[in-house]
């Protein structure tokens, strides 16, 4: 980075968090879609997109997957978020016609726009086309809402929402349950309570 670029970099504000009219227009499918009603079938397994039309374009899905996998990458215990359907989960979420979901829809779509704007400001590319260090540099600036610099507040709110969505999608799957060593939801003939050795180690009777 030459001196001139560095000065530009230092002087430039982060990409603005300001999105006037891009979403929520009457033609927006999420605004006009209907919910599942007050008496849905509780026994069947639902497919994403079955109840209301999904939102994300191929390009947005790519970004959604990259960001979800930055938040929950594969490790020795379990695969990454995108490998277990988290992008589809988030797409269903932000396409749902309920107040909370419409709010998150705006936050997420604005966040995607901001990520690309911030990446372009920093290196002239979209977020998805950045290398790892470029991506993580942006995430580091926005990953902690209460400590984010003033100009990153809006983006940090987005990151917090997106991390919740990613975790929500991931830990509700069989893989997520296994990652946490959840061993319930099976019928037992009797319930014995915690093993005595464990209680003893915790100083409990």
């Amino acid at each position, binding site marked *: 980075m030459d001196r001139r670029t560095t000065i530009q970099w230092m002087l430039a504000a982060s990409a603005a968090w300001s999105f006037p009219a891009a979403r929520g227009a009457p033609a927006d499918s999420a605004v006009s879609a209907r*919910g*599942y009603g*007050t*008496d*849905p079938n*509780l*026994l069947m*397994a*639902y497919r994403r997109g079955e109840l209301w039309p999904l939102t994300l374009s191929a390009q947005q899905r790519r970004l959604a997957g990259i960001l979800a996998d*930055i*938040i*929950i*990458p594969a*490790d020795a*215990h*379990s695969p990454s978020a995108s490998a277990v359907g988290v992008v589809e989960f988030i797409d*269903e*979420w932000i396409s*749902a016609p*309920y*107040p*909370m*979901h419409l709010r998150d829809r705006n936050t997420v779509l604005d966040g995607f726009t901001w990520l690309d704007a911030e990446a372009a400001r920093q290196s002239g590319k979209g977020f998805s086309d950045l290398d790892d260090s470029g991506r993580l540099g942006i*995430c580091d600036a926005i*990953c*902690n809402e209460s*400590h984010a610099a003033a100009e990153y507040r809006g983006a940090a709110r987005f990151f*917090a929402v997106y*991390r*919740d969505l990613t*975790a*929500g*999608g*991931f*830990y*509700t*799957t*069989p893989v997520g*349950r296994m*990652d*946490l*060593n*959840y*061993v*319930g*939801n*099976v*019928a*037992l*003939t*009797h*319930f*014995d*309570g*915690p093993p005595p050795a*464990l209680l003893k180690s*915790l*100083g*409990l*009777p």
Partner: protein
Amino acid sequence: MPFVSARTQKSSYDVIVVGSGAAGGQSAYTLCMDGARVLMLEAGRKYDPALETPMFQTPDMAPLGSVGTPEKPFGFYDATVDGGWEVPGEPYVRASEQDAGRFEWWRARMLGGRTNHWGRISLRNGPYDFKPRSRDGLGFDWPISYEDLTPYYDKVELLIGVYGSNEGLENTPDSSPGCLLPPPKPLVSDLLVARRAKRLGIPVIPGHRAVLTQPLDFAQSPARLHPGNATAQKILAEDMRARSACIWATPCGRGCAIRANYQSTTVHLPPALASGNLDVRTDAMVYEVTVGRHGRASGVRFVDRKTGNHQHVTARVVILAASACESVRILLNSKSARFPNGLANSSGKVGRYLMDTVGSSLRGQIPLLESLPPLNEDAAGGDQMYVPWWLYRDQHAGKLGFARGYHIEFGGGRRMPGYGTGAGMEWLTGGSYGVKFKQDVRRYYGSFVDFDGRGEMIPNDQSFCEIDPSLKDKWGIPVLRFHWGWSEHERRQAAHMQKTFADLIGAMGGRTDGAPQLDGAKAIAPGGSIIHEVGGAIMGASPATSVTNPWCQTWDVKNLFLTDGAVFASNADKNPTLTIMALAWRAADHILERMRRKEL
């Protein structure tokens, strides 16, 4: 027998029961098992827990990870269908949208009503709870005492199956021998709360919930419940055998297909139907009690929600068990020349003295519970243990600044991960992401304990409902308008809860999620939101100041009874459902006796 339609329904019955939840279910059960011919009218649809309960479904099978939405407020898998804080086409009015004056009304338009999803917490009111005014000069005494209701608490516990223990604590009654099922084993977090609470002088004892920790005693209980009635004993014995014990899995709030907990649809209605004496009409929205000669109730009018047809059906006795507020609505809408202010309202007290439970919550994160080995902690589905109110002496001595007590429900454990399991953790993780985030979620999963205070509200003049002068529901039935206000007693009690929770969390070596809210006005949950609304047609010793007599019989109309929470003259911290059922059984016994004597 049967679920009836306009075509198959009989023209007249001994008793009409409006509503099919805890009150309607118990009323119909008691009446039918003793030979009365009953028509039950339920506003919601037919509902069959054996066929409809999502027992082992996981959140990934549901839309949106099964989180709550306005259409399924307690989550996709909650048993409630066609219900919630708002019911489409059936509005209600809040006189105030401010938090302090706000009232929320939960309704469930389905057979069995709210009993399908309730928390199953089944606590008896104690002796003090029936005579609060005598103790501290506030609110109203009931015209009955704990001893009047004791045999009925025993009967209800034997019938529905309640686990718990007898601890001999003040105003926290023991059950008669053989009434309670053994409590479930506590979780690690339960034992930690109990151990550390003891240091603070706070008692932690087994909870009481309507969950079968073992099969019911079908050999002995039927004879105890229906002495001298061989038919009833036989029906009940068969039905008790058909109920399974808990399988220690799947949340009770979804309902229970194997009938291991209490819901009206799995416990009260099957034997009542088997008796041959019960007809049930669903989608029948009652809006008026009609009055015949001599000012007696002649029957009810309802609208069939599917066809929109209006119908009138008659009976010797009418029981309203539609939930406190809905029963009040029916009374106030039953206007006639003889009863211009609504039925049974000569006192002007119909709609007055609505009460809910004081609620406040705080969550703690407990390092000792981090990174525990894999354990199945689904257990009995919650409230293995609880804290009964313990400061009777200080309170009576005026040391607390509020007049009535609260109990604490709490829960921790390695429950099935859900949408919130990894959410909102910045306060613990500093905003981690990546592999570190996955490690953090593993570390903190199962390390939280939630504390919920449930306290007594004293009835007051600002909390009531009335008919809105203009708004009607989609059937053209005038709707309720709610007014609400807390007193200093409730606000201070909520602040005291917060302080206690913080002390408990501190004693466990934990951190609170956010600072405890010591401003009571902000700590208290909005009126109605705990869904323990009672009152509105309170029982009392005098027709001038109450709506019913000690038998839940309206003073003004002798063959009209209210067996739901509307008759509560106070709302102890104890959850109301068990008391509703005990009162309903007692009232139904009284009706049977009076019918035998041809007085009704």
